[in-house]
């Protein structure tokens, strides 16, 4: 996969720190699963976590915890590789990044897409929180409404492509944007563009029309 748009350092640090919302972490993990370059950066941030763990002043652990664990170990066979990688036994749809497969067990086309406006549909991830976490499917030639953000917005392309003020985004690319950016993504592929997106705060639509329809967009 030829990836041209990567994750921001600040996003990767928060991911390793465990400080991202569920939806944002899902986009990050999905991109990491296909991008060796970002994965290497993520490993450095994990190592920073290891160093910080070592730096902590020890907290007293009850005297019998070790004894209690040791007695359990005999009944506790180590996990085997096959048990751990049970995921791989499912039919693998290469279009869906591994972390996303945890929540989707059919092809992207088989999902129950819900319509926002003609040419724009979505499928919500099964959790609630601040901001949104969903798949967004936009028809060729359609544009997302112009908007900016109160917080961060992460978008990973799974199919098709789009262009906006920042650049051209194709499969595997991730757009990692914040409140400094106002943009209007336009789908420029011949097929529908399907993206995995997450925000950590509501979007701010910048046109009057956008503001009027915001209540029905679910953003």
């Amino acid at each position, binding site marked *: 996969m030829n990836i041209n748009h990567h994750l921001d350092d600040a996003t990767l640090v928060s991911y390793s720190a465990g400080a*991202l919302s569920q939806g944002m972490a899902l986009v*990050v993990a999905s991109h990491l699963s296909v991008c060796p370059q970002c994965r290497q950066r993520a490993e450095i941030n994990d190592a*920073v976590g290891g160093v*910080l763990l070592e730096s902590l002043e020890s907290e007293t652990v*009850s005297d019998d915890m070790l004894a209690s664990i040791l007695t359990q*170990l005999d009944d506790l066979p180590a996990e085997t590789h096959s048990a751990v990688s049970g995921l791989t036994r499912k039919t693998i749809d290469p279009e869906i990044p*591994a972390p996303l497969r945890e929540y989707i067990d059919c092809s992207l086309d088989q999902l129950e897409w819900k319509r926002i406006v003609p040419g724009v549909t979505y499928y919500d991830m099964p959790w609630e929180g601040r901001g949104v976490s969903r798949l967004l499917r936009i028809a060729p030639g359609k544009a997302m409404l112009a908007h900016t953000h109160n*917080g961060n917005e992460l978008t990973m392309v799974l199919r098709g492509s789009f262009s906006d003020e920042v650049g051209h985004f194709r499969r595997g690319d991730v757009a990692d944007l914040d409140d*400094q950016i106002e943009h209007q993504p336009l789908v420029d592929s011949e097929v529908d563009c399907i993206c995995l997106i997450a925000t950590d705060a509501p979007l701010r639509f910048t046109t009057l029309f956008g503001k009027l329809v915001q209540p029905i967009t679910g953003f």
Partner: protein
Amino acid sequence: MKNRPPGEDVDNIVQLNQAEMASSDWSDLLGSLAVKPDKHIYARLFNHFAPKVKAYIVRLGVALSAAEELTQEVMLSVWRKAHMYHPEKAAASTWIFTLARNQSIDWMRKQKYPQYSLDEWSETASESGQGEQEVLSDRVARAISQLPEKQSQVIYMSYFEGRSHGDIASRLDIPLGSVKSRIRLASEKLKQIWGGEEYEY
């Protein structure tokens, strides 16, 4: 170590003076546990890491009684998942940190923290060998302690308190963009050290 290591008297398992262990020794120990389950080795790792893991969990905001239970779960998974540890890929502290982080988040959110999977570590091109990982850990530790306060503050708030950019911004009463640029600056310095570039201590 300020606190007496817990479980010190269990089967007289702990014979080594823990304080004299270098960080590379922990990776060696965990590496040997990866190859062959051994309770004595596990007990030594437990005595070193369990109090750190608990300290981490407590700082994340988990109540003390629950932190004790969660620490036990994390340390059990160290045993169960040990075969997945590769000393040439990461220091023991890094690997145990990711276990503690994931399980703490799962516990607090009742949702699995999306991961790019520990399995895939084995496929990741990592050029540094084990000894190098440890040297790096020491250098990174020094570097973190020398970050300007504004940068180390956002790093600590991220890793130890699990705060999002937006949350840090409102706590410190600074714009979101400032939080991100502070994190980027800190990350840049740490990456330079990792990449072996010159860095003035």
